[in-house]
């Protein structure tokens, strides 16, 4: 085991959490519910950015974003719990690093949209097609979140280094 994982697994918090045998399955269940909130809420807005469902006003399509963010928050907390309980499953895993990479891509993509393109949302009339820049942001977001899901679920199977 790598020294960092060995240290973290030896800490009191990691041991106490591991000793609660119900905690892991409980966090997994929450992680999957959070996933559905995130994919549903963000995916809906992404589809609108891609130019689908044009009769839905852009600003209205954003209504599910707080729920998507809540889903992400749930998964960040439960994901951190998994990491603290068993870091050796993640630190050497190529799938885990790929997952983290795509979380960062999705996050930066969303921040780029909010800080630069986001203000143009208001100017878009009803039934109007979305500009190419919106379509790119929507495609990157949709692809990244499914990549996060893919590498998360594939974690036990690829790039575990053994």
């Amino acid at each position: 085991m790598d020294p960092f994982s060995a240290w973290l697994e030896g800490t009191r918090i990691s041991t106490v959490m591991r000793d609660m045998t119900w905690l892991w399955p409980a966090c997994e269940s929450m992680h999957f519910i959070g996933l559905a909130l995130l994919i549903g809420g963000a995916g809906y807005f992404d589809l609108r950015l891609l130019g689908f469902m044009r009769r839905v006003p852009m600003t209205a399509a954003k209504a599910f974003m707080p729920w998507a963010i809540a889903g992400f928050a749930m998964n960040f907390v439960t994901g951190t719990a998994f990491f603290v309980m068993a870091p050796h499953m993640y630190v050497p895993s190529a799938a885990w690093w790929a997952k983290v990479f795509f979380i960062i891509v999705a996050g930066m993509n969303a921040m780029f949209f909010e800080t630069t393109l986001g203000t143009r949302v208001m100017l878009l009339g009803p039934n109007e097609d979305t500009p190419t820049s919106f379509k790119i942001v929507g495609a990157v977001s949709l692809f990244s979140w499914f990549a996060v899901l893919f590498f998360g679920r594939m974690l036990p199977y690829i790039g575990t280094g053994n």
Partner: protein
Amino acid sequence: MPALLHALQDSAFSAWVVGSDSIWAYPMILTMHTVGLGIVVGAAVVIDFRLLGVGPGIPLEEVRHVFPIFWLGFTINLVSGLMLFVSEAADKATQPVFLVKLLLVILGVIVTARIRRRVFGDGSPGVLVPSAARPLAMMSIALWAGAIVAGRLMAYLK
């Protein structure tokens, strides 16, 4: 019945799904099942939350376009779920938490189909959400959340 289940579980297909070292066998089918989950429950969440008052600016009529996405996800999970079931048919058919999951999924589909008919059944829906839709939407959320938890617990409650 048990003979059929064992025949399925002992088939060459099952041997490939469970026994193959390839990530294209069990891991990929399992991952597709999770992709489908995200699409099915994600679409259900959008429909249900809109009916419960989230995003009032979204014309009710436009929510109609979310149902095909729901059915796309459901098809992915029906196919991947059947593959996963066949490969362990005899074991899964007697696992109580699997039967609970199956029941919750069936009820979830029935409730979603009812929502489709109640709210969008005849012609274009009005501006206001029909009052009968709210309890159905709440039921739908509870059923899908329950199905997710039961599905996850299949790995623990053998």
